[in-house]
């Protein structure tokens, strides 16, 4: 029983990180209907900003950790907005495939520029938050895991609030529903899209710092695998749907954790992805996604 609960905690903290990345994919898809493959590399840049800022501040303090994370979020938000402005905006209105290929190109550009700027060697990420291990009746949870779960929950609630309770959130939903009509009622689409990219990238930046905190070895290609997993989580939950992305990420984190802890750990990815295929066979739009029928 205690092993089961421990695995539950492990799965929760893994799922929380997937959720932060998945939200960025899903938000951009919701508004623009394209998958921003460069998102996982913005996540990597976030980890590196956290690395440089974190080392300049006193280590192991709550404020130092929060400042590093805020810096990573701000830096990534700017990066996301710049990428959208320079790379995606000129292609807006063109075929979706062009934007998709460009996104892949952007992703490769960030990965290999990262190798040039940061070097390809993995680096040890500093312990920017206070480290502590807590134990309740044989259940062990580290401070880092608590931070990941708490920060992810706070950011999720903040995102939900922004999208459903603020003016810009209403505008985002309007653009997602029908960009043309949104423009007709006086919404500045460019501002809304920039904001969406900024917000999604800021979440990726926070995700990067939290990921690096838990797995303290960072390199320019670190975004590839978690990015892929988060993308799958977003599809599983119903791409374009915010609670869906969080739910999908939690399911993926849990399944991976329980398979890893079992005798079948060799087949972790195979089992996790078989379950995903199974779910998508019965709910092609994802768990919380709305079924839409194409009108001809």
């Amino acid at each position, binding site marked *: 029983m*205690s*092993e089961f609960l*421990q*695995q539950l905690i*492990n*799965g929760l*903290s*893994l799922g929380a990180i997937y959720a932060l990345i998945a939200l960025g994919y899903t938000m951009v898809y919701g508004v623009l209907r394209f998958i921003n493959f460069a998102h996982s590399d913005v996540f990597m840049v976030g980890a590196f900003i956290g690395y440089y800022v974190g080392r300049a501040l006193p280590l192991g303090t709550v404020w130092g950790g929060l400042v590093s994370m805020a810096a990573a979020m701000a830096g990534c938000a700017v990066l996301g907005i710049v990428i959208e402005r320079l790379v995606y905006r000129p292609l807006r209105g063109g075929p979706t495939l062009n934007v998709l290929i460009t996104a892949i190109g952007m992703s490769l550009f960030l990965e290999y520029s990262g*190798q040039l700027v940061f*070097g*390809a*060697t*993995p680096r*040890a990420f500093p*312990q920017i938050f206070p480290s502590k*291990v807590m*134990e309740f009746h044989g259940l*062990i949870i*580290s401070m*880092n895991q608590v931070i990941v779960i708490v920060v992810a929950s706070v950011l999720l609630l903040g995102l939900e609030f922004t999208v459903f309770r603020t003016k810009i959130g209403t505008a985002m939903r309007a653009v997602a529903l029908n960009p043309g009509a949104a423009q007709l009622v006086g919404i500045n689409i460019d501002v809304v899209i920039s904001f969406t990219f900024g917000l999604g990238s800021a979440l990726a930046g926070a995700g990067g710092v939290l*990921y690096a905190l*838990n*797995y*303290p*070895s960072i*390199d320019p290609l670190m975004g590839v*695998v978690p990015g892929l997993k988060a993308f799958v989580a977003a599809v599983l939950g119903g791409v374009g749907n915010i609670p869906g992305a969080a739910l999908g990420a939690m399911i993926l984190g849990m399944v*991976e*954790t*329980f*398979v*890893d*802890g*079992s005798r079948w*750990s*060799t087949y*972790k*990815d195979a089992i996790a992805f078989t379950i995903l295929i199974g779910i998508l066979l019965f709910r092609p739009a994802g768990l919380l996604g709305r079924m839409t029928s194409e009108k001809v």
Partner: protein
Amino acid sequence: MAAPLPAALRLLALAALAAAPAMRADDAIRVGEYASLTGKEASWGQSSHQGIAMALEQINAAGGVLGRRLELLTEDNQTVPGQSATAAKKLISRDKVVALLGEVSSGRSLEAAPICQANRIPMIAPASTNPKVTQVGDYIFRVCFIDSFQGTVMARFAGGDLKARRVALISSVSNAYSVGLARIFRERFVAGGGAIPAEQKYAEGDKDFRAQLTAIRAAGCDAVFVPGYYTEAALIVRQARELGMAMPFLGGDGWVSDELLLIGGDAMNGCYYSTHFSPQNVSPEVRRFVEHYRARWSGATPDAFAALGYDAAGVLVDAIRRAGSTEGPRVRDALARTRAFSGATGETTIDANRDASKPATIIAIRDGRLNFLETVAP
């Protein structure tokens, strides 16, 4: 388009002929090297490269071999699967190297070995310990011990020195070295009367091992054997300590890297691993090598792969000298007859399987430092 090409080639050939006398003056022997200079296991490529480069510089300073200078041509495989084969092809077909040195990782050596074998170019792996590497063919050699020895040493160390009865295993599914070493450890430890209560797997590049570690913790054990590479091993031990697992973790030469302590931090205290070399060894050859290395590479302390790279280059040049030629078959025959070559990692003798039998060194990590514990003879 078809016609101008041969013409251009002819022109090139003429140019080459014209340049030939000039080239003969600096008729260097070209030695190829492929290494992971960047990427996930960059630390290994850097170490072996610095060892090899230093060996060749020293030999050149002493007058070269067969009256000729040695020239090192290095290709970076970026730790990416598939790149080592490309690098080997390029070095052999374009750069016309007489022999290849590389790699530390068994998986990457296994990529390049068939190409060297097919082209009859001798290859010396400095530190690939998987037995399959030299089984590729009679042109493939190594200057380090193999995993069946390393696995036996660690199984004996766990059962003897550490008095462990139950040792759990956590290994990589996608790494030839890890799979092989785990299998040998399991066989030898069980044969010695020990038990393996849990055996968990992970994939290369994984960063979260809490699930596997939680299962190991539930099974209960006195020690954990992690036959993986330092990038994963450091994270595994760190996460294990967070889960309250205080038992010793054991590893093989895949743990050799400065990054192990940088990433693992205090969590690594109380862990042990087997390797090929320790700079703390007091034998005169080792001390001389460490001094030269520090002087050449601005104070850096050599690790096992720097020492093995140094010895691989030394063994190759020794064979070229004895063969009196740089032709593949003759160098190969001379390499196969290498007996008691004295280098940084002790004496190298190439056996009938083209492997070297060498003592293993056990390192204990205490107070954030690597401490030389003992040497186990084969």
